[in-house]
């Protein structure tokens, strides 16, 4: 009897884990919709549209639509090298460390290499309107010339470069641990409206694994729980009969 109880309770626990996985897959289906975002890119400037750490077997699909021809760059840098870049920036601009997050590391390193003279700027004094060094860096950073120079210096980081086009789509699955940055560059002399949509391919693969696991766990849980449920029902019935007689 104790073995049946032990297996039965194990079965009900497995069943509940399986049901939790089903609920999770339903929740993730409901939140799977990836909203596209539309924004203008100024003439001869570029923007970061997506960035993050990708481990092997993780990836995304990017779709870009624009009102004029744009270039899309998929850049990947090893986490070790990315860490080195961050250290270099922190040393070069110690007072600015709190301003930028990871997504700005790549453009900042491009600026640093293209304009080494803009060294160690002081924090802007809000009472001193002449202090323009930080705004200068930010203005230069998004210039397409800075991007071109950066890519010439680090050609190894280019994982994919799109042809000049208004409609683009690309799937990326990482084979290594990389910090990925997707940039859209506007080479034209007028502002271009760009609509970007990123679909997480990793989440889709993950959901598939969760569904497969749920399909395995639920029958196992039910199979283990049934003998215990039947025996406890029979026992309760016997007790009730004894009490009534």
């Amino acid at each position: 009897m104790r073995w049946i109880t032990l297996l039965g309770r194990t079965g009900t626990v497995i069943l509940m884990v399986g049901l939790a996985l089903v609920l999770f897959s339903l929740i993730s289906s409901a939140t799977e919709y990836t909203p596209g975002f539309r924004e203008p890119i100024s003439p001869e400037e570029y923007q970061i549209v997506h960035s993050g750490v990708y481990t092997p077997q993780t990836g995304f699909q990017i779709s870009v639509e624009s009102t004029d021809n744009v270039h899309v760059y998929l850049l990947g840098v090893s986490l070790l090298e990315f860490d080195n870049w961050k250290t270099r920036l922190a040393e070069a601009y110690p007072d600015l460390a709190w301003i930028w997050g990871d997504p700005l590391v790549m453009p900042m390193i491009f600026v640093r290499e293209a304009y080494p003279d803009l060294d160690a700027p002081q924090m802007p004094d809000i009472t001193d309107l002449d202090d323009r060094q930080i705004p200068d860096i930010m203005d230069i950073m998004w210039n397409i010339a800075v991007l071109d120079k950066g890519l010439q210096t680090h050609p190894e980081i280019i994982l994919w470069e799109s042809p000049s086009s208004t409609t683009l789509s690309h799937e990326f699955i990482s084979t290594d641990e990389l910090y990925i940055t997707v940039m859209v560059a506007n080479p034209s002399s007028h502002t271009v409206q760009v609509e970007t949509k990123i679909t997480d391919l990793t989440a889709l693969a993950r959901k598939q694994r969760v569904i497969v696991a749920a399909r395995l766990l639920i029958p196992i849980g039910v199979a283990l729980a049934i003998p215990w449920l039947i025996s406890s029902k029979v026992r309760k019935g016997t007790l009730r009969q004894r009490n009534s007689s």
Partner: protein
Amino acid sequence: MGKGRPFLEIFTCALKEDYRFPILEIFAFFFALGTFVFADLGAYAQNGEALAYSLVRTLWGFPLFFIFVVLILKNVAYGLGSDLDKGVIQTLFSYPLKRRYILTAKLLSALGIALLLFLGIQIFGLFLLAPDVILTYSSTVFLTCAAHLCSPALLLAGLVLLLTLRLKRGGFALIIGVVLYLAFTIISPWAPSIAYATGSDLALKIWAVIDPNLALQRYYLGTIWFPSETWAPSFSEVLLYLGAGYLIVAALFIIGYVYFERRLGI
């Protein structure tokens, strides 16, 4: 009759009390759902180890870990407390078994099974969500789990055990345990603020002894974006703080055992 059979008797009795149907199933459901919902695979990271650390850390956050802490505190305080209150422990003392084995059987049910459930579901969930991260950085995952488990989970369980044995009543000990957990989560972020304000690492080091996760967090996530005076321990220091944390936990449980054996007054 050997020692094994009465030990198993007490253990199964404790299991039946601690995990009445469907308590275990409800907790299993919430643990599993929480693991998948709260796992943040896009966690901030500088490198793979930091990614593994951040990923595991998200699972030991407030809602999921709070459920786990409530389960173990309920088992330790309410389970043991009601046994002391109702005189069940007196009956158990008539078993041909040393007192320490009786407490071991109770704690094995209260903490062991809860831990097995929580860690089992977490590891299974992580294997499904990010198998490459877990397989590549298994030592990081192990250390992160060990640090979070040490404090506040086992630390609070030890304190609540002492309180329950002293008061011989579970309800009050349970409330104190939950209050202590909330106080712990509120006080925890103060250490870096104090260190930043004073320019000294002392507050961080003291808190890292109580909560080794702070040392681990500093080691994996680094201090690159913080002012240079903040503390970044080496790996051997992290192990040292983890060991110190477990020593405190072990001391609390040893005091509990000694009290249960010699000073319970039953």
